[in-house]
């Protein structure tokens, strides 16, 4: 977490809150400024580098004592806080630049220039880093550390289009630096190095600025709007209509009970499950517009109106009934609306016009009977037709059919005839099973133990299924099976016990199976 918002130390918030930049609790920075006070701040020493003296060095112990005395916290806390100051780059060590910890002895530190203070508004830029590396290259005549060399090459590729500028700017910054006096140049170097040690950590060093994923919300953002949105959301959530769980669960139970017999997994399906027996008869019998539907299907139409409408055969039958009652145009209109909604949208305009001409226009051939307001809305909407323009009329007709015609349909001779005609498919014969007599001790090779089994099969049609019972295969499973017989070739299958395995392509005759198991 960046220091700007983390430290709550009971200090008064800082002075300058102007409109040009957002004001945060700049408490660490206030502390930094207090440390500079000639009377109450930290005493500075001079750092001797060869023949030059560079002022404003502070000892680690002095920093610690100052924090203790100013903030009145425990020594452990003060040490940790001071350590954070160094880690984030507010203070940098002079004697061991890469060791960003606060030592409570006389080792020297110096304050970082405010430009290089850590801040969220100005993240360390790749271009700046490239310029820094180029400058370092110039100063050290090409001697960069390994990770810096890697970064250099990577940046050269990444911001290649800016590279000329990077070189130009690095040279100019280097030359401009020479206009300052030696001691200042040295201090500047130390500052920059410290800044980039924090912002582009060398491998192996702790990267304090890594805070995980970027936040989706801006902590600087206006809180009031966020809270307003939250309030609106909560109000709407309260107003949502709810159903008691006893009611909804009762509905679920009722649904499950009603549909249990129709569920192929729970209740099995007739004639047989095609996925198991490879027999597509089930799908043939239940095709969309099959001549004679199954009884289960026809009974299902009586559950509720939507079941009838979702089955094309059901709709076909229902249409027969409606024609007898002279209200066939209702279903026709409904189907046309469905086509408009789910059909080719490029033809929306033409379709809508056709529907209007056929069903809605006064004096149309199949005029539907809807009330005045709905008709008005629909006609108005048809000026700019789109997918859902006939939604209101369609709902009206649907409700009409549901409440009125559906009841009569279920009692009508049309439905009853269909019910009588409906077929109940026969369950298919169980899988062919081959009884195999195991001949043991057939042959032994160093790597395989072979056993054989033989069996005769009737004239075959379709696949053969093999099941090895666990007792049989206990010494054998898993094992490979070679199936030979008068068929197209040998099948080598890996058998696991208690599982049906399929063998294809067998013809009539003798079936031999050799089991082998690797040692």
């Amino acid at each position: 977490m960046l220091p700007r918002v983390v430290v709550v130390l009971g200090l008064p918030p800082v002075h300058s809150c102007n409109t040009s930049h957002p004001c945060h609790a700049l408490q660490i920075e206030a502390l930094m400024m207090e440390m500079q006070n000639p009377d109450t701040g930290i005493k500075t020493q001079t750092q001797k580098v060869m023949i030059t003296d560079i002022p404003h060095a502070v000892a680690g112990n002095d920093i610690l004592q100052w924090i203790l005395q100013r903030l009145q916290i425990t020594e452990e806390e003060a040490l940790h806080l001071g350590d954070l100051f160094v880690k984030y780059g507010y203070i940098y060590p002079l004697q061991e630049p890469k060791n960003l910890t606060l030592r409570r002895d006389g080792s020297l530190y110096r304050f970082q220039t405010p430009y290089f203070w850590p801040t969220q508004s100005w993240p360390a830029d790749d271009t700046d880093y490239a310029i820094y590396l180029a400058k370092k290259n110039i100063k050290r005549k090409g001697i960069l550390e390994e990770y810096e060399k890697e970064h250099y090459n990577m940046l050269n590729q990444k911001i290649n289009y800016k590279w000329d500028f990077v070189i130009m700017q690095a040279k100019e910054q280097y030359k401009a630096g020479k206009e300052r006096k030696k001691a200042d140049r040295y201090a500047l170097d130390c500052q920059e190095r410290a800044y980039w040690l924090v912002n582009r950590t060398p491998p192996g060093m702790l990267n304090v600025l890594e805070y995980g994923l970027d936040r989706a919300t801006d902590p600087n953002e206006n809180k009031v709007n966020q809270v307003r949105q939250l309030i609106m959301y909560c109000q709407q959530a309260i107003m949502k209509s709810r159903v008691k769980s006893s009611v909804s669960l009762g509905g679920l139970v009722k649904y499950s009970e009603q549909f249990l017999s129709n569920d192929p997994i729970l209740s099995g399906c007739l004639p047989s499950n095609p996925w198991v027996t490879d027999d597509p008869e089930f799908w043939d019998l239940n095709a969309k517009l099959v001549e004679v539907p199954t009884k289960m299907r026809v009974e299902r139409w009586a559950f509720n109106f939507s079941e009838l409408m979702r089955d094309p055969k059901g709709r076909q039958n229902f249409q027969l009934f409606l024609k007898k009652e002279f209200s066939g145009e209702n279903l026709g209109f409904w189907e046309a609306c469905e086509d408009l909604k789910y059909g080719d949208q490029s033809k929306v305009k033409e379709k809508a016009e056709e529907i209007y001409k056929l069903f809605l226009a006064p004096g149309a051939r199949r005029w539907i009977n809807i009330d005045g307001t709905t008709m008005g809305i629909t006609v108005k909407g048809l000026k700019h037709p789109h997918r859902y323009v006939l939604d209101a009329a369609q709902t009206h007709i649907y409700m009409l059919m549901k409440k009125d015609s559906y009841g009569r349909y279920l009692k009508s001779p049309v439905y009853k005839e269909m019910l009588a005609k409906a077929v109940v498919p026969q369950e298919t014969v169980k899988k062919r099973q081959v009884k195999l007599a195991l001949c043991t001790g057939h042959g032994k090779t160093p790597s395989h133990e072979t056993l054989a089994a033989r069996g005769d099969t009737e004239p075959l049609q379709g696949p053969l299924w093999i099941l090895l019972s666990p007792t049989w295969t206990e010494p054998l499973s898993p094992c490979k099976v070679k199936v030979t017989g008068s068929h197209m070739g040998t099948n080598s299958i890996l058998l696991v016990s208690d599982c049906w395995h399929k063998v294809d392509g067998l013809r009539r005759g003798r079936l031999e199976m050799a089991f082998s198991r690797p040692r």
Partner: protein
Amino acid sequence: MVKEECKALLDALNKVTACYRHMVLTIGGTSDSQNLREELKKTRQKAQELAVANRNKLTTVLKDKTVSKEDKAEFERLWVIFSTCLEILEIDMRRALELGHEFPLNVPKKHLIQTGMSGGTSGVAARAMSVQNMKYEAEHNIDVVDLKDLENEINQVGEMMYEMEMKVSVPQWTVEAKQDPGAELKSTISMGASSIGMISVEENKSFCDISKVLAGIIFSAVLIIAIVLAVCVVKLS
């Protein structure tokens, strides 16, 4: 020729930007002073003039349909350098504004950060303004007064950048750098021992050197004494 003029203008802007960056680094530190603030003001005004001149020149050239393909590529490269330079300048100006607000100079309670700087930046400023010596003629509260102007200038630069982007469409990523990585090493900048930066690298080495020298001196001194003693012994005996 047009190309040379453009390059010269761009080099000038580059120089001023580098100097401006140096000066912004010093805000808030012990080298900060009213003079620095005045230098900042003058430098950035110069930078703005150069930026406008650059922009005008480059836009006229880029809009000209009669330039050859190689020339156009070259001008696009210059354009990319120019726009990057301007971005850096704008960022530095914004930071200068922020730091200027945080570190007003005449408030007795606000202490400047002791960054180890003791010298001034007049040399850098002189380099930026291309003069021999800087003259300081501003009032004593320029640090506060200038901030308003700075805000306006930042807005101006921002607008200029926006206009540039709208009027001239140069896809930045298509420009290829002319300089290879490491090109800065080939330049003939003297990196003599005058820089203390070098000293800090060789700090460790130089200690060993000195100890070696000392050892050599001691050894030779001992040797001379031994020879002298031997001669004395020989003479006396």
